[in-house]
C-alpha cells in the first residue's frame, strides 16, 4: 500500500463510479449511500498519507513516486508517473476532503438523475487528483482536459436556469487555454530531444532542459512559450481579464459543483504556475526587458492586483449571494497569484497556504449559500433578512466562515494573506500597498452581506419557518471549521510541509545562489519556517520596518 498509495487514492473514486454503474438507478438511496461510501473512503484512504508524508517533509525531491518514464506510450515518450511534493500533498488532501464534503452535501440537493450525478462527480474527483499527482506532462495534460467533461455535465445537467450557456462557456474557455499549452508542451518536448536525443514528457527530465530555452531560442520565443502556458493557467485561476467564465459557471453550477469548482479546480491554475511556469521559464520572469511598459513579471503582478481590487469591488455590488462569493474568488485568487509571482519563499508559501484556505472558506461559503438556496430556492440578498433569528446554528457557522474568508486573525485566511503580503512587500512595497485594500474590501462586502442577510428582524414572512441545519449539514462544516482554526492558530506544520518544495521552486527561478533576505537555509536549520516561529530569524526588509515583526508575534 505504501508504494502505491497515490494510485490507490487516485482510482478509489473511479472504482466508486464503476460500482455505481451497476446499481439500479431507481434505488436512489442505495446510489447515495454507495457514492458517499466511496467519497468517504477516498478521503480516509488519503489520511495515511499524512503521517507518511510528515516523516519525510524536509527531504528533497518528489515523494511516493510511482511508475517509470515512458512506460505508458513508449513510442511517444509518455509515462504513467505519479509523485507528490509538499504543494501537491496539501492540494490532494484538500481535494479528497472537499470531494467527500461536496458529495455529502448533495444528498438532498440533487433529486433527479441521482445516479448519473454521483458517477460524474466521482469521475471528476479522479481527474482532479490526477492533475495534482501527474509527474509526466502528457499524463498531466490528459487529466487536465479530461476533467473538463464531468464538470461540464455537472453544470449543464444539474445547473440553474442558464446552465447550458454557463457549461459551454466553461468548457470552451478552459479548452481554448489548454490547447495552446499543448503546443507549448510539444515545443518543450522537441527541445528536450534536441538537447538529449530522448523523446520524453517526463517532468523531471524536462526540468533539466526547459530553462535553457531562454538561451537557446532567445527571449522572444521563451516569452511566447511562457504565454502559451500562461493562458491555460490564467484562464483556470482565473486571473483578470480571463475571469468572465467564472461567475457564470459558479452561479449556474449545483452547490457541490461550485464547492469543487472554487475549492479545487481554480487551484489547478495556480498549481500549474508553480509546477510549470516558474521552473520552466526563469529567464522570462527575471527578464528586465519590458513588454508594453512592463516586464513579464510586472504584468503578472499587475493582473493579480487588478484582480484583487476588481473582484472585491464587483463583489461589493452583487445582488445574488452566489455571484458575490464567485467574484470574491477572483479577488482571493488574485492574492494567490500575487504570492506566486512575488518569487520569494514567503510569497510562494503564503500563496499555497492561501489556496488551501480559499478551498476551505470559499468552499464553505458556497455550501452556506447552497443551504439557503435549498430551503428557499432563491439567492437574492434582498429576499433575506434576520435569518440569525430562525437559524442560529447556521448563522454562527456562517460568521466563522465569513471571518475566515475575510482574513481575521486567529483564522486561516489571515495567515495566508498576511504571508503573501509580506512576500509582496519584500519585493516592492508598492505591490503590497496596492493589494492591501483587497483585504479591507473583503471585510466590507462580507460583513455587509452578513448584515443584510442575518441581522435584524425577519423581514420576509417566507423566511419565518426555515429550519436550522440538519446533523448531516453540520457534518459538512465541521472539518472545514476545524481546519480554519487549525491553520489560523498553528500554521507551523503547514509551512514546514511547504518549506522544501517552495524553496526548491524559488531556487529554480532565482538560481541556486539566491538567498531570500531573512530566510534561514532550510537544510541548516529545519525548524526555521516561514514565517518563522522565531521572529529573530526574519530580518524585516528595508522600507517596511514596522510591518513584519509585530504582527507575527500576535499570530503565534
Amino acid at each position, binding site marked *: 500500500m505504501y508504494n502505491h498509495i497515490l494510485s490507490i487514492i487516485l482510482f478509489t473514486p473511479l472504482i466508486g463510479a464503476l460500482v455505481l454503474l451497476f446499481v439500479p438507478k431507481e434505488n436512489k438511496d442505495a446510489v447515495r449511500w454507495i457514492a458517499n461510501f466511496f467519497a468517504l473512503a477516498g478521503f480516509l484512504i488519503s489520511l495515511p498519507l499524512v503521517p507518511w508524508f510528515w516523516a519525510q517533509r524536509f527531504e528533497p525531491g518528489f515523494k511516493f513516486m510511482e511508475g517509470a518514464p*515512458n512506460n505508458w506510450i*513508449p513510442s*511517444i515518450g509518455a509515462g504513467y508517473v505519479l509523485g507528490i511534493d509538499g504543494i501537491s500533498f496539501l492540494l490532494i488532501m484538500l481535494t479528497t476532503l472537499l470531494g467527500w464534503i461536496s458529495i455529502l452535501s448533495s444528498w438532498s440537493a440533487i433529486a433527479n438523475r441521482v445516479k448519473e450525478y454521483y458517477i460524474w462527480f466521482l469521475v471528476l474527483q479522479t481527474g482532479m487528483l490526477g492533475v495534482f499527482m501527474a509527474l509526466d506532462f502528457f499524463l498531466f495534460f490528459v487529466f487536465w*482536459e479530461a476533467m473538463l*467533461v464531468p464538470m461540464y455535465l455537472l453544470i449543464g445537467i444539474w445547473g440553474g436556469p442558464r446552465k447550458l450557456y454557463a*457549461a459551454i462557456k466553461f468548457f*470552451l474557455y478552459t479548452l481554448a487555454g489548454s490547447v*495552446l499549452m499543448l*503546443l507549448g508542451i510539444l515545443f518543450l518536448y522537441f527541445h528536450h*530531444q534536441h538537447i538529449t536525443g530522448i523523446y520524453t514528457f517526463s517532468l523531471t527530465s524536462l526540468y533539466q532542459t526547459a530553462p535553457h530555452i531562454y538561451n537557446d531560442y532567445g527571449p522572444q520565443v521563451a516569452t511566447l512559450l511562457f504565454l502559451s502556458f500562461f493562458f491555460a493557467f490564467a484562464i483556470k485561476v482565473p486571473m483578470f481579464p480571463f475571469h468572465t467564465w467564472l461567475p457564470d459557471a459558479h452561479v449556474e453550477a449545483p452547490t457541490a459543483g461550485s464547492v469543487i469548482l472554487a475549492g479545487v479546480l481554480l487551484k489547478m491554475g495556480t498549481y500549474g504556475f508553480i509546477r510549470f511556469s516558474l521552473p520552466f521559464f526563469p529567464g522570462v520572469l527575471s527578464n528586465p526587458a519590458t513588454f508594453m511598459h512592463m516586464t513579464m513579471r510586472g504584468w503578472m503582478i499587475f493582473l493579480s492586483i487588478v484582480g484583487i481590487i476588481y473582484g472585491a469591488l464587483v463583489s461589493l455590488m452583487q445582488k445574488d449571494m452566489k455571484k458575490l462569493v464567485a467574484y470574491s474568488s477572483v479577488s482571493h485568487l488574485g492574492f494567490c497569484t500575487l504570492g506566486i509571482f512575488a518569487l520569494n519563499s514567503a510569497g510562494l508559501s503564503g500563496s499555497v497556504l492561501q489556496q488551501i484556505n480559499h478551498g476551505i472558506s470559499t468552499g464553505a461559503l458556497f455550501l452556506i449559500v447552497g443551504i439557503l438556496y435549498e430551503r428557499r430556492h432563491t439567492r437574492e440578498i434582498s429576499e433575506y433578512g434576520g435569518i440569525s433569528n430562525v437559524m442560529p446554528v447556521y448563522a454562527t457557522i456562517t460568521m466563522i466562515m465569513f471571518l475566515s474568508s475575510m482574513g481575521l486573525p486567529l483564522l486561516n485566511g489571515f495567515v495566508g494573506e498576511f504571508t503573501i503580503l509580506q512576500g509582496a512587500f519584500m519585493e516592492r512595497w508598492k505591490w503590497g500597498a496596492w493589494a492591501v485594500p483587497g483585504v479591507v474590501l473583503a471585510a466590507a462586502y462580507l460583513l455587509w452581506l452578513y448584515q443584510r442577510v442575518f441581522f435584524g428582524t425577519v423581514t420576509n414572512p417566507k423566511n419565518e419557518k426555515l429550519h436550522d441545519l440538519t446533523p448531516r449539514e453540520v457534518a459538512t462544516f465541521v472539518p472545514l471549521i476545524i481546519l480554519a482554526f487549525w491553520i489560523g492558530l498553528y500554521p507551523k506544520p503547514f509551512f514546514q510541509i511547504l518549506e522544501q518544495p517552495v524553496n526548491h521552486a524559488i531556487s529554480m527561478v532565482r538560481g541556486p545562489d539566491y538567498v531570500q533576505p531573512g530566510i534561514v537555509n532550510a537544510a541548516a536549520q529545519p525548524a526555521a519556517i516561514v514565517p518563522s516561529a522565531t521572529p529573530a530569524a526574519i530580518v524585516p526588509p528595508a522600507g517596511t520596518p514596522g510591518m513584519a515583526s509585530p504582527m507575527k508575534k500576535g499570530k503565534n
Partner: protein
Amino acid sequence: VGALGLSASDYVLSLPITLLTLFALGILLIDLMLPKEKKWVNAVTALFGVAFSAAAIWNPFRENILTYLQAQRFASHPAMLNSMLVDRFAVYFWYLFLAATAVSILMSVRYLETEHENHGEYYALMLLAVAGMMCMTAGYDIVLIFIGLELMAISTYVLVGFLRRDRRSNEAALKYLLLGAFSSGIFAYGLSLFYGLTGSTNLVVIQQVLARQVMTSQYRPVAVVALITTVTGLLFKIAAIPFHQWAPDAYEGAPTSVTGFMSVAVKAAGWAMLLHILCIGLMPMRSIWLPLLVFVSIATMTGANFAALTQTNTKRLLAYSSIAHVGYMLLGLIAGTPTQLSADGIKGILIYLLVYTFMNLGAFGMITSLRHKNVIGDELDDLNGLYSRAPVEAVLMLVFMLSLAGIPPLAGFWGKYFIFLSLIESGHYALASLGVLYSVFGLYYYLKIANAMFMGKIEKGEEKLPISFTMRAALGVAALATVYIGVLPNRFIELVNWALGIVQNPAVARLTH
C-alpha cells in the same frame, strides 16, 4: 506464369480484391433466391466476404503462399505488371476499409428493413466500392488508380440514391453524380497531361521524369496546370473547401448508413489516393502544391467550422464536421519543409483516418438508429432527451462527440496530436495555433449534440428507443475502439510506424528497455 502475362503471385496479391468482387456478384445471385423475410442473409454473406478478404490480406498467410510460389521475401510486392504495390501502406488501408465496411454492414441491416429497401444490391455495391478503394490504395499506376476511383464512385452514387422513394436521396445522388463526374473529368484531364509530359502512367516513373526533366524544362508551366487540375480533382474527392459543396447535400440525403460509410471509407480511400499521388508522383512539385494546400487547409478549417455552427440537421452538421477534419488532416501534409515531408505529419494523417473511422461511424450509427417507425431522426431536435430513451447509447454518442472534438484520452485526440506535433516539429507555429483554436471552436457544435442528448427535453413523451442487436454490436465496436485507442494508443502508433516503415526512435527504445 499465366494468361495475360500475369504470374501466380499477381493472383495471390490481388486475391482480397478478387474475393470481394466474387462475393459481391454472389450476393446478387443469392438475393434472387431469398424470400423477403430472409434478406439478412445478404448481410451475413457480405460480412463473410469482408472476413475472407481480410484473411487473404493477412500477412503470414500471404507470405507463406508467396514463399511457396516464389521463394522470395520482400516487404512490398509489385504486382499486376507493376501497376499495383501491395506494401504495408496498402495493407494498413485495406484493413481500415474492411473494418469500416464490416461496421457499416452491421449498422445497415435494421435501417434497410425500416426503409423497406432491403435489397442485396446494397451490400454488393458496398463490397464493389471497397474493391475499388483497394485498387486506389495499392495502385501505382494512374490508370489503375482511376479505374479504382470510378468503381468506388459509381457504386457510391447508387448507394446514395438507394432510397428510391425518398426525394432527398434522389436529389443527393444526382448532385453527387454530377459533381463527382465533373471532378473525375478534371482529375483525368490533369493525369492525362502528366502522361503527356512524362510518357508514363506509373507514379514512380512520373516522379523521376518530373524531377529530372520536366521541372527544369520549358514544359514546367504545363506541369503546373496539370498539377492544379489533378489536385483540384483530389480535393473534390476528399471534400476540401472550396470543392466541398457536394458533401453536405450528399451526406444529408443519402441513407444514413451510407453516409457513415462514405464519411469514413470513401474519404479514407480518397486520402490514400491523394497521399500516393502527391507524395510519390508529384513529390518533385511539392514546393508548388504546398502553398495551395496551405490556402485550402485554412479555408477548409475556417469555412467548415463556421458553417457547422448554424446547422440544425445532425447529418449536415456532421458533414461539415467531416470537412473540418479534412482541414486538420491537410495540415499533416503541410508540415515539413518545401522539399521534405514530415514523417510525423503523414503518421498523423494515417492515425487520424484510423480513429476517425471508428468515431465517425459510431456517430452516424447512432443517428441511423434514431430512424424508426415514422421518425426520420436526423434533426438535432430528434436527439433531445436521448439520454432517458437510450442511456447507454447516449453515453456512447457523447464519447464519439468528445472524441471528434479531440478531448483526451479519447482516440480523436491522437489524430490531432500527431498533426500538431508535426507542425511544431517543423516550425509552423502559426498554423498549429490556428488549428488548435479551430478545434476548440469545433467543440461548440459537438457539444450542441451532447446538450440535446443530456439536457434537452423530450418533446412527445417518447418511449425507449428500439435499437437492434446488430446496431448495438456496431456501436459497441466503434466505442470500444475509440476508448481503447485513446487510452492505450501505443500499439496503434507502432502499427502506423510499421505501415509507413518508420523505425521506432532508438532514443525512446533505449529509455524503455
